[in-house]
């Protein structure tokens, strides 16, 4: 692909709101995970909750969109001058030429869960429950397009954990086809009962802080996040570049990854080919690294098949938690931070490396020139996406 300029980027996670807070936490090797207090859930699990979501009020003209997911989106949009950057793109290209492509897994589903708890004696939902602007999978893109007054094409990709990685591919293809000139690309996912109880029912949730690549790893810590980038056909001030996109399916099982990682290998090779790069050109790999026994083993196999065992890599989910539909976007912005600041972030909470895993997994921050990063996002239902990011030359 033709390298695609990323003019602006921002992320808000349990590490804090905005790039500076995130970078500070990464430099300090600090996790944002804590035992769950969200809704006083009686689940023995740790989560990455974002502070201040409830206190974030939507503009009154957007009141119909009110739900946790869209409040988190609004909190995220207000960081790092992102709104100004989008306004400039809108002025430059025209509102109809700027698209919105976002990933999410549960959108405003918490709003529905809460509405079910307020059903009347006949079982009907309360009249103040608005399905379209809250629960529907598209609602966060509708909200962002409305809030930013963007009138180009928009949709939400919802492929579980690869959602907000795949949207980068969509934006690149749309710009290349000449249908748009710029796009807001990212993802938002927020804490809700369905994912916490759902992953718990699959016994994929850890009862302690998650430990990607750890010998004693036992599952996920769920996180929530909003991550946004602005990609443009041309940019005067690129923060970085999208160099390659690779996508595939496992075609294997709905909730277990292919043990040999054939789909993951295909996605990584496709991303490298799309970027016209060799494995040795990648300086750091941001692993999907969810800390389930099977994901990390399968990903370790797959990554070492493509890269060998020398390329430094880590999962940042020990810091942010697994932010599901937002993970691709979060980890894209972390990749850009890594490049900009010459920082390969440590994988946290390891406690003791799993000796069966072969990769050069970083347990301490490494400061070095980082020119190109590969970021993996491998999802439920076997949807895989790998992205290659590069710095300003």
């Amino acid at each position, binding site marked *: 692909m033709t390298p695609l300029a990323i003019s602006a980027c921002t992320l808000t996670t349990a590490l804090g709101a905005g790039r500076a807070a995130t970078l500070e936490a990464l430099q300090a090797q600090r996790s944002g995970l804590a035992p769950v207090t969200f809704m006083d859930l009686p689940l023995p699990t740790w989560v990455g909750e974002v502070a201040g979501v409830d206190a974030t009020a939507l503009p009154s003209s957007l009141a119909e969109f009110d739900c946790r997911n869209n409040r988190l989106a609004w909190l995220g949009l207000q960081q790092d001058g992102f709104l100004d950057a989008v306004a400039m793109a809108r002025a430059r290209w025209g509102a109809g030429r700027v698209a919105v492509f976002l990933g999410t897994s549960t959108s405003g589903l918490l709003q529905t869960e809460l509405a079910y*708890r307020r059903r009347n004696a006949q079982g*009907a939902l309360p009249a103040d429950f608005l399905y379209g602007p809250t629960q529907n999978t*598209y609602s966060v893109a509708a909200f962002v397009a409305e809030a930013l007054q963007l009138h180009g094409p*928009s949709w939400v990709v919802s492929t*579980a954990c690869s959602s907000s990685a795949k949207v980068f591919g969509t934006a690149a*293809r749309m710009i290349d086809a000449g249908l748009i000139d710029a796009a807001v690309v990212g993802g938002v996912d927020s804490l809700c009962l369905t994912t916490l109880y759902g992953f718990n029912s699959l016994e994929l949730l850890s009862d302690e802080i998650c430990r990607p690549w750890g010998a004693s790893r036992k599952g996920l810590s769920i996180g929530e996040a909003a991550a946004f980038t602005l990609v443009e056909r041309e940019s005067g001030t690129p923060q970085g570049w999208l160099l390659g996109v690779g996508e595939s399916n496992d*075609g294997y099982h*709905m909730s277990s990854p292919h043990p040999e990682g054939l789909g993951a290998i295909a996605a990584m090779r496709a991303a490298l080919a799309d970027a016209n790069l060799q494995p040795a050109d990648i300086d750091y790999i941001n692993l999907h690294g969810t800390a389930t026994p099977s994901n990390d083993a399968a990903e370790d196999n797959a990554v070492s098949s493509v890269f060998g065992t020398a390329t430094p890599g880590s999962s940042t989910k020990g810091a942010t938690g697994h932010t599901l539909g937002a993970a691709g976007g979060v980890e894209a912005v972390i990749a850009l931070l890594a490049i900009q600041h010459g920082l390969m972030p440590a994988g946290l909470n390891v406690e003791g490396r799993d000796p069966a895993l072969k990769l050069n997994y970083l347990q301490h921050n490494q400061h070095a020139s980082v020119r190109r990063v590969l970021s993996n996002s491998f999802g439920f239902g076997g949807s895989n996406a790998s992205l290659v990011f590069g710095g300003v030359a």
Partner: protein
Amino acid sequence: MSELRVWVQGIGLLGPGLGSWPASLGVLRGMQPHVSAPTALPLPARLPPAERRRAGAAVKLAMAIADEAVAQAQVDPGTLATVFASSSGECANCHALCDALDAPAPVVSPTKFTNSVHNASSGAWHIAVASRASSTSLCAFDGSFGAGLIEAAIGVRSSGQPMLLVASDSPYPEPLNAARPLPDHFGAAFLFTAAPTERSLASLTISLGGSLHADSLPDASLDALRRAIPAAAALPLLVALAQGASQAIAIDYLSGLNLQVNVAPVLQPEAA
């Protein structure tokens, strides 16, 4: 204005009173009136027996139309990239989970949770045909068909390979149905290629249009479907393909942004 061109090689259709693409040709051509009847969802033949029985409505619908399009196109599904577009995903699971979560100590079915992801139909299809080709599952609420059509067309352009578009919607059970009423299940699937082949039915030239809405369909019952079920935004395209004449149509997508599609037939469809 940029245009995308794809060739249609296979079509799948399933909806109220629309049992399949061949069975619907008379209605789509205006030779018979559309008579609504409950959508009959077949058990997915591709799934192993246990999975077949457990498949939810959304999966049954998606697989039925995907199968029909692939069979007509005579392509190998094992290497086919796909786009699944739905305004709602698997609705019965969503209701069951929300209902189960309305309890002091919720007990949630792991199977229902796994199959509640928006890409459950994509996952089921790719597992059934053992395809490791790329797939996306997307949503644009009432504009989901339009979004799917664009994503599939740019996918064909980018890869030069065929793509399967599967657009489908199912109703929610109550109480969600009252908040989002859809009259029935509806789905349409299209197998697109990057270049004409001897099996091409028509070419589509797609561009982002202005704010002109799709024309009302002459059959009032069919037009009611078009307006009531998001995936049925495909009906003007299906009508044009059935009629086999060159025409320019509008497909509703977002308010203020629609798709213009020039349909140019290559072969006459088989007479009903």
